[in-house]
């Protein structure tokens, strides 16, 4: 019982009941201070892994790494001319090596970063075929995880190792369980966890989830970042100052640029495995170079995406589109079941896969006209359209009999601050 309860902002909503529940919870709630020192130590350990690994795990790396003559490293910086970015660790023909923060894998050479397939609150990077616009099908996701199961080994059996690292395989299909055959036929992702990628962590670590026909091969190629190399972090969308600091932390060299811009792309791209000291270009994109919002409209935003709606519209509950985000409609229409609705949705429909990508206000869009497949109410193809905001992983649903409303909403879609 403490000040939380006194600070509750809705005294009308029976706080007495919750206060009574809260009081009775007391014996179940652990006491004691926050383990701040431990949290900081573990957090810092994760942060410094990319540099610590190169020294600490060099002896454990079982793969042979070709020496790169021009990358003479001292104190994390190159003392020679900037190494060429295309020098990557050895990968079999047709493959290239990509990674995230201490761990690398070999993927097909044409796979690219898929920016909207990771988990937003984790450090993660996904790679997949360039033609795939959704996060389905073949691909691999590298994730830094801090939650990990305790594994009990059978008597006489020990942990398994891969490229000098202990590896724990998490297979979603229990081979002895019901439906194992059906599960395997679905080819779900197989996850390999690497508990000792950073030995300082009591709770590791790093994982690779791969799907598609080559998933076993990809996952089994996971290994530490070779000595003298580092992984280009994903800084797209960050402010230049923060991006430069992140790059410098990773042992990379960056250009001198003006502040108040954000990073549009990087060259080489995020996930590339390059020698420490490599120069990474950060072509900036000016914030604010976006279509102005016309009179009579207001900007609303959710989860990183903003769109203009008529001033007279108001927030309404979503029903017809089964949208997973908020929706807006005319004030006089009850709910969002009418023919005029603008909503934001996390769901990415399959029809976007074939849609061309355009750029607007510094973000990439895919526009699919007509009623969404999941629309359950009345719908006219002529008055509906769905817009996928590629980098933000969001869909904007626009429905209005007014062409002006539709066109203004579409033209106004932008990244939210």
């Amino acid at each position, binding site marked *: 019982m403490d000040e939380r309860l006194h600070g509750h902002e809705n005294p009308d909503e029976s706080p007495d009941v919750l206060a009574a529940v809260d009081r009775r919870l007391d014996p179940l709630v652990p006491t004691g201070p926050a383990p701040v020192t431990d949290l900081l130590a573990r*957090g810092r350990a994760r942060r410094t892994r990319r540099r610590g690994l190169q020294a600490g795990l060099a002896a454990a790396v079982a793969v042979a790494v070709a020496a790169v003559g021009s990358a003479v490293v001292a104190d994390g910086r190159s003392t020679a001319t900037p190494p060429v970015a295309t020098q990557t660790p050895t990968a079999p023909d047709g493959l290239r090596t990509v990674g995230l923060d201490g761990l690398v894998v070999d993927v097909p050479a044409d796979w690219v970063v898929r920016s909207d397939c990771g988990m937003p609150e984790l450090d993660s990077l996904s790679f997949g075929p360039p033609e795939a616009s959704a996060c389905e099908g073949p691909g691999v996701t590298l994730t830094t995880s801090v939650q990990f199961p305790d594994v009990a080994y059978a008597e006489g059996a020990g942990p398994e190792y891969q490229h000098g690292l202990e590896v724990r395989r998490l297979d979603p299909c229990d081979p002895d369980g019901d439906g194992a055959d059906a599960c395997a036929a679905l080819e779900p992702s197989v996850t390999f966890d690497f508990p000792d990628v950073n030995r300082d962590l009591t709770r590791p670590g790093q994982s690779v989830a791969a799907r598609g026909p080559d998933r076993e091969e990809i996952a089994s190629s996971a290994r530490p970042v070779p000595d003298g190399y580092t992984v280009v972090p994903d800084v797209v969308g960050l402010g230049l100052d923060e991006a430069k600091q992140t790059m410098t932390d990773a042992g990379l060299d960056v250009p001198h640029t003006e502040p108040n811009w954000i990073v549009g792309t990087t060259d080489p791209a995020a996930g590339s495995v390059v020698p420490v000291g490599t120069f990474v270009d950060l072509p900036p994109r000016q914030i604010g170079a976006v279509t102005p919002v016309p009179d009579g409209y207001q900007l609303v935003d959710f989860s990183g995406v903003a769109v203009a709606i008529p001033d007279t519209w108001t927030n309404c509950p979503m029903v017809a589109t089964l949208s997973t985000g908020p929706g807006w409609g005319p004030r006089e229409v009850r709910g969002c079941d009418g023919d005029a609705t603008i909503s934001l949705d996390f769901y990415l429909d399959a029809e976007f896969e074939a849609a061309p990508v355009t750029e607007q206000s510094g973000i990439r869009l895919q526009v699919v006209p007509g009623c969404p497949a999941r629309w359950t109410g009345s719908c006219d193809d002529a008055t509906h359209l769905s817009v996928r905001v590629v980098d933000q992983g969001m869909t904007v649903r626009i429905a209005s009999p007014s062409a002006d409303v539709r066109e203004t909403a579409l033209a106004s879609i932008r990244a939210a601050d």
Partner: protein
Amino acid sequence: MGVSTDADFAEYAAARWPTLLRSAVFLGCTPAEAEDLAQTTLLRCYASWRKVARAEHRDAYVSRVLLNAFRESRRRRWWGERPAGDDLPDVAVADGTDLVAETESVRRALAGLSTAHREVVVLRYYLQLSERETADALRIPPGTVKSRHSHALRHLAAALQPSPEET
């Protein structure tokens, strides 16, 4: 991550630790799981602390991390393999009769509430998010937040009423 950023994180972690633990217990975690969940949440926040610190409403961001971590932990297979007895905490009390009865009553009350309803209460009550912020965090309409919250309150009020034989 700089010293001042670490200090900022440390201050936040120390201040929110009791609330995170209490939220986790309310969601259905045992004391040990509650500590794990609170640590996982804070570690994930530390990894993106610049983003968290920049967030318009820091608690709203952290609450999303907490719920994601909680849902992930519940999805993992090993949750289903634990014997039910593990969920019963060992509570040491001097004279336990009344306290154990009270604790048991709240456990029963919470057991009758779905995870979706518990999540709304945690965000509204423990993390003190507004209806709008709760709706955003849970990705549900504000009206649903309101109805789940009032349903949860009604349920808890009814469940905590002493039964006739207890009065």
